[in-house]
């Protein structure tokens, strides 16, 4: 008989389940302004404390505090607020469109709007983002991306730039620095590093921005990305959006219990920050810091954005089955739009009237875009890319077997 106690398998559980409140003390928050801002040439090993604390700028009263408060004018913040509002309104409208069966599927980024929009504004033209399916803010923050075209993608209609080949939300906008989204999680994280290595190989000045969620950090490509980024000092920002949930699994089951995702970066020799993802100013400042490091040949930065996935994982998900219904309201970092709005109002650079007017204007803009996109058809109503287009772009030039298969299909269609 063994002298030892029987071993027990540890399976992490969230404190909150339907009917039980979440205890958010696991987040280990810092106060606004409390965390230091090192020089951009800080050694990765000197960022250890930053991986376990939380960079925050905006306090509960909407004041910008501490060394991370970015030197930006109110105009840029208004632009950011507008981009966040646009993203939220777009999401809400597309969610309805999905319920109305105008589109087959949708994924919101409700509550996470600050992260993608602020980083989009901190990047430069020519930089390439490698997003997941929840960074629509990268596109909606830009004025040069046509919302109608985005909705055409959602509708898989005849103006869908992806020709109906991709699920809704799997956008691709090379000209806007937005890499083609894949359904396979984490694959883009290492690809971003490769893109950044290419920029360095060619002596370019462009940088890459990689995106991954908390759950997907468990994928092998998360590790390969960190290793390659570190080994080759690739000019890349490695963004980990920790929204606490991967569909139904709490971030602890991804490996977040009693540690942080930022700490992984330090362990791999990458300068790392853990940042309030609902604080637009902090997101902008940290993104700028990381972008400057990358652009100055100082290497990669990993940033864990602490946020909360307020909405359902997707239109196919019902979060009330695995987490408390009022969880988002209790999340201690609040709402990114409300917080930036309060700050701008404190600066005297925003008002309830302006907010309402902007809300209405954006609602009208999104509504009009949806209406226009609907004119080009939808999956439900037909008018999609031709079936023959299904065979294009598998290869650069269509091989004989695909030409033959296309002919077979066309013959079949002409019989009908």
């Amino acid at each position: 008989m063994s002298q030892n106690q029987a071993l027990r398998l540890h399976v992490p559980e969230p404190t909150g389940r339907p009917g039980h409140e979440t205890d958010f003390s696991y987040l280990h928050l810092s106060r606004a302004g409390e965390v230091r801002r090192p020089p951009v040439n800080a050694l990765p090993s000197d960022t250890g404390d930053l991986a376990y604390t939380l960079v925050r700028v905006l306090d509960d009263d909407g004041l910008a505090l501490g060394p991370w408060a970015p030197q930006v004018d109110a105009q840029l913040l208004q632009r950011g607020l507008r981009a966040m509002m646009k993203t939220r309104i777009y999401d809400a409208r597309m969610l309805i469109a999905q319920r109305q069966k105008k589109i087959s599927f949708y994924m919101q980024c409700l509550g996470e709007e600050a992260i993608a929009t602020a980083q989009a504004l901190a990047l430069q033209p020519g930089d390439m983002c490698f997003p997941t399916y929840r960074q629509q803010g990268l596109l909606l923050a830009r004025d040069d991306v046509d919302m109608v075209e985005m909705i055409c993608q959602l509708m898989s209609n005849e103006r869908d730039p992806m020709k109906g080949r991709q699920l809704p939300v799997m956008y691709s906008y090379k000209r806007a620095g937005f890499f083609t989204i894949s359904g396979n999680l984490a694959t883009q994280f290492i690809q971003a590093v490769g893109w950044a290595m290419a920029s360095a190989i060619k002596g370019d000045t462009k940088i890459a921005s990689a995106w991954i969620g908390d759950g997907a950090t468990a994928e092998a490509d998360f590790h390969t990305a960190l290793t390659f980024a570190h080994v080759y000092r690739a000019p890349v920002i490695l963004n980990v959006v920790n929204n606490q949930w991967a569909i139904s699994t709490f971030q602890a089951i991804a490996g977040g219990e009693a540690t942080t995702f930022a700490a992984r970066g330090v362990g791999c020799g990458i300068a790392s920050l853990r940042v309030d993802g609902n604080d637009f100013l902090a997101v902008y400042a940290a993104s700028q810091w990381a972008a400057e490091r990358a652009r100055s040949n100082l290497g990669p930065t990993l940033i864990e954005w602490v946020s909360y996935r307020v909405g359902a994982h997707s239109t196919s998900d019902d979060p009330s089955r695995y987490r408390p219904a009022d969880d988002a309201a209790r999340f201690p970092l609040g709402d990114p739009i409300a917080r930036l709005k309060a700050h701008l109002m404190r600066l005297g650079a925003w008002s309830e009237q302006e907010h309402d007017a902007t809300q209405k204007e954006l609602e009208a803009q999104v509504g009009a875009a949806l209406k226009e996109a609907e004119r080009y058809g939808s999956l439900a109503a037909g008018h999609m890319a031709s079936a023959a287009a299904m065979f294009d772009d598998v290869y650069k030039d269509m091989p004989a077997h695909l030409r033959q298969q296309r002919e077979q299909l066309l013959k079949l269609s002409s019989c009908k």
Partner: protein
Amino acid sequence: MQMTMIQALRSAMDVMLARDGNVVVFGQDVGYFGGVFRCTEGLQAKYGSSRVFDAPISEGGIVGAAVGMAAYGLRPVVEIQFADYFYPASDQIVSEAARLRYRSAGDFTAPMTIRMPCGGGIFGGQTHSQSPEALFTHVCGIRTVMPSNPYDAKGLLIACIENDDPVIFLEPKRLYNGPFDGHHDQPVVPWSQHRLGEVPEGHYSVPLESAAVFRPGADLTVLTYGTMVFVSEAAANESGIDAEIIDLRSLWPLDLPTLVASVKKTGRCVVVHEATRSSGFGAELTALVQEHCFYHLEAPIERVTGWDTPYPHAQEWAYFPGPARVAAAFKRAMEA
């Protein structure tokens, strides 16, 4: 000049590194050391470590980074040390490289080449002998290519690097230093004594989707590639059966007209590959011949392949489809 397959492959990379500033070469031990098979020897010294460099031991990382580089506009030529070790990169190959052009409707592309030494006959055991080509030919969006000699190796590799589709370039390591006909008890003849060891120094290419009639014949058609080209040749010579040996070179997409023309001429077909039998690439070849040559066939299509087992170490020559097994299939096809 005379080159081994190793030298021919190195020459192809040398030529392309010199011609196209977007070509980069990397993988495990590929840089300073010049590769465990010497295929990249001297390239880092010649082109610098930003063009030719060592990579961490991470197949998923190597291929994933190459996809990102290709999306940027480079033309990466990466190496997986043994084909047996590509599996960690499966997701990047199947879900990403192969689909980038399609899913983005041409917005992003992946012009990249993944070199993998493959095949057995070297006492490589389970993880240094596999022939995983069927796992690639089943993936739409990639090309799978395998040379059988130095001339084709260089010309095909240049064609693959220049091609805008992602390519899996399988190199039969048994053929690196000389042709091998399966007679393991006989001394190996070096490429310097073979007509196909004569390789031009400069740029040339062998077109993709084009098979070669390696040995013309009238009795039956052999559809094969890699090391089995030479095994089939030995089987033909030893059995006295006038086999027409087709070296596919491009496995998929392939050169169907050349295959069909040969089988329609001979009326008999034997498919030969090292890879395991069930759902191997031979099944696709057999199906294609059946579809396109049914009324010309005078016998059932034979398949000579590796057994449906992992590649063993001690039982190497009982596993490897040598000339005796291939010749027996020739006889069956002739007698049917």
